[in-house]
C-alpha cells in the first residue's frame, strides 16, 4: 500500500500540486487521472522520488519515503518497477539486456537463472523470442511491453505506469491495460497508473483519483463515475463522445 499525505509542489512560484492526499491499495490498479497539465506526472514523480515535494509525505506501507535516508530510499526503490511514457528502454541494449538490467545491477543471480527469469517475463508480456532485437527494431506497443517486463523482472512490489497508452492504437492500449491489470492481480502488487485515457479508466479503474488544477477533486471507482456530482470531473469524463452516448 502507498499513502500520500498533503503533497504540495510549486515550480518557480507556480503551485502544481496543492495538498494532495490519498491511499493506493495493493492488488488493484489505482489510477491518477486528469487533463494535461494538472500535475498527474508530477504527483507520480513525487511518489517515486524523482521530484521532492515542498510539503507532505509519501508512505510505502509504514515507511516514510520522501525524507528517508539515502539507504532507506534505495531499499524501497529496489522494490519499484516503473513504465515510462516513452518506454525509457536503453537504446544500446537488446530487449533481453534491457529486461535483465535490474537483475544485473541489483542482484547476484547466476546468469542461467537471470536468462530464465527474463524469458519468463518476456513470455508473460507476450514477447517470447524477441530477446535479441534492439528497441529501435520493435513497435511502440512492444516497447511498452518490454518496459513492463523490465518493471516486474525483479519481483517488484510497486508498479508505476506513466501514460502507458500514449501513442498507441486502441487495440494495443487495451492489451497494455489488460496486462497491467493481470500483473497487478496476479502478483498482488501496488500499481499506480497515470492516464487521461477514458478507455483505461473504464477498463481498469478500480480506484480513481481525479486531479484538477493541482487539486484532488474526486476519488472513487469506475462504477461511481456516472454519478460523481463534480462538474469539473463530469466535464473531463464526458468530453469523449462515446462517454456522452453511454451517459444518455
Amino acid at each position, binding site marked *: 500500500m502507498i499513502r500520500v499525505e498533503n503533497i504540495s509542489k510549486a515550480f518557480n512560484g507556480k503551485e502544481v500540486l496543492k495538498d494532495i492526499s490519498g491511499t493506493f491499495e495493493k492488488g488493484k490498479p489505482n489510477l491518477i487521472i486528469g487533463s494535461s497539465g494538472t500535475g498527474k506526472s508530477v504527483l507520480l514523480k513525487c511518489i517515486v522520488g524523482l521530484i521532492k515535494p515542498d510539503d507532505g509525505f509519501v508512505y510505502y506501507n509504514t515507511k516514510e519515503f520522501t525524507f528517508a535516508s539515502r539507504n532507506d530510499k534505495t531499499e524501497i526503490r529496489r522494490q*519499484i518497477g516503473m513504465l515510462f511514457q516513452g518506454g525509457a528502454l536503453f537504446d544500446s541494449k537488446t530487449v533481453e539486456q534491457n529486461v535483465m538490467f*535490474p537483475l544485473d*545491477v*541489483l542482484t547476484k543471480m547466476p546468469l542461467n537463472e537471470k536468462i530464465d527469469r527474463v524469458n519468463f517475463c518476456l513470455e508473460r508480456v507476450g514477447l517470447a523470442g524477441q530477446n535479441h532485437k534492439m528497441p529501435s527494431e520493435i513497435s511502440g506497443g512492444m516497447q511498452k511491453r518490454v518496459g513492463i517486463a523490465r518493471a516486474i523482472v525483479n519481483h517488484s512490489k510497486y508498479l508505476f505506469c506513466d501514460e502507458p497508452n500514449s501513442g498507441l492504437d486502441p487495440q494495443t492500449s487495451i492489451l497494455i491495460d489488460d496486462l497491467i491489470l493481470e500483473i497487478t492481480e496476479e502478483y498482488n502488487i501496488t500499481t499506480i497508473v497515470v492516464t487521461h485515457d477514458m478507455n483505461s479508466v473504464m477498463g481498469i479503474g478500480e480506484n480513481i483519483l481525479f486531479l484538477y488544477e493541482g487539486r484532488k477533486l474526486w476519488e472513487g471507482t469506475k462504477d461511481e463515475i456516472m454519478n460523481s456530482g463534480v462538474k469539473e470531473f463530469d466535464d473531463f469524463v464526458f468530453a469523449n463522445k462515446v462517454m456522452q452516448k453511454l451517459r444518455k
Partner: protein
Amino acid sequence: MEALGKYFIFLGKLFVNRETFKTYFKLTVEEAISIGIKSIFLVSLVSFFMGAVTTIQTAYNLVNPLIPNYVISMVVRDMTILELAPTIIGVIYAGKVGSSMASGLGTMRITEQIDALEVMGINSTSYLVLPKILGSLLTYPILVVMAGVLNIVGGYLAGVLSGVITPHDFIYGIRFGFNEYTVTFALIKSFVFAFLVSSISSFKGYYTVGGSLEVGKASTAAVTSSVIAILLADYLLAQLLL
C-alpha cells in the same frame, strides 16, 4: 558561479551510493574501448599531419646558416611533447568524445532513461558518469603518447622526404638535450585534460532539459566549456609545473 557549484555537487555524487566494483570495472573497460576506437583514427591523422607541417614550417623559419639543422627536430620534439600532443589533441578529444558523451547523456535524460535508473535505486550519476571519467583517464594518456609518436614520425617523414633535414640530423635533434620531465609534464596534462573533458561534457549532458534541440545545445556547450577549461588548465599547469 551557480553552474560551478552545481558542477562540484555533481562530482561529489560520483562517489556516493555506488554499485559493485565488478559493475564499474566492466563499464569502465567498455567506455575505454569505445573512447579509444572513436578517437584513434582522427587523433592519428591529425598528429601525423601536425608533425609534418610543424617540421616544414620550422625549417622554413630557420633560414640562418648558423643554426644547425638538427634544431628543427628539437623544436618539433619540444612542441610536440609540451603542447601539440596533450593540448591540441585535447581540443580534438573534446570535439569528438566530449560532444558524444554530452549528446549520449542528454538523449538518455530526455528519453527518461536516467529517471529509469534512479527509480531502480541506482545512482545514475555514478553509474553513467564515473565509468566515462575513468575510461577517459585510462585512454587519453595513451592517445597522447600515440599522438606524440605519430607527430614525430610525421615530422621525420615530411622533413626527410622534402629534403629539409637528413635522417641523421633529425634523430640527433630528437635526442639532443632531451629532458625527460617534459614527458612527465605532458602526461600530467593529459590526465587533467581527460578529467576536465569527460566530467564537463558529462555534466552538460546529464543536466539537459527539453528535447532534441537542447541535446544539440548541450553537446555544443560541452565542447565550448571543455576547450575553455583545457586552455585555462594548460596555462595554470605551465605556470605551476615548468
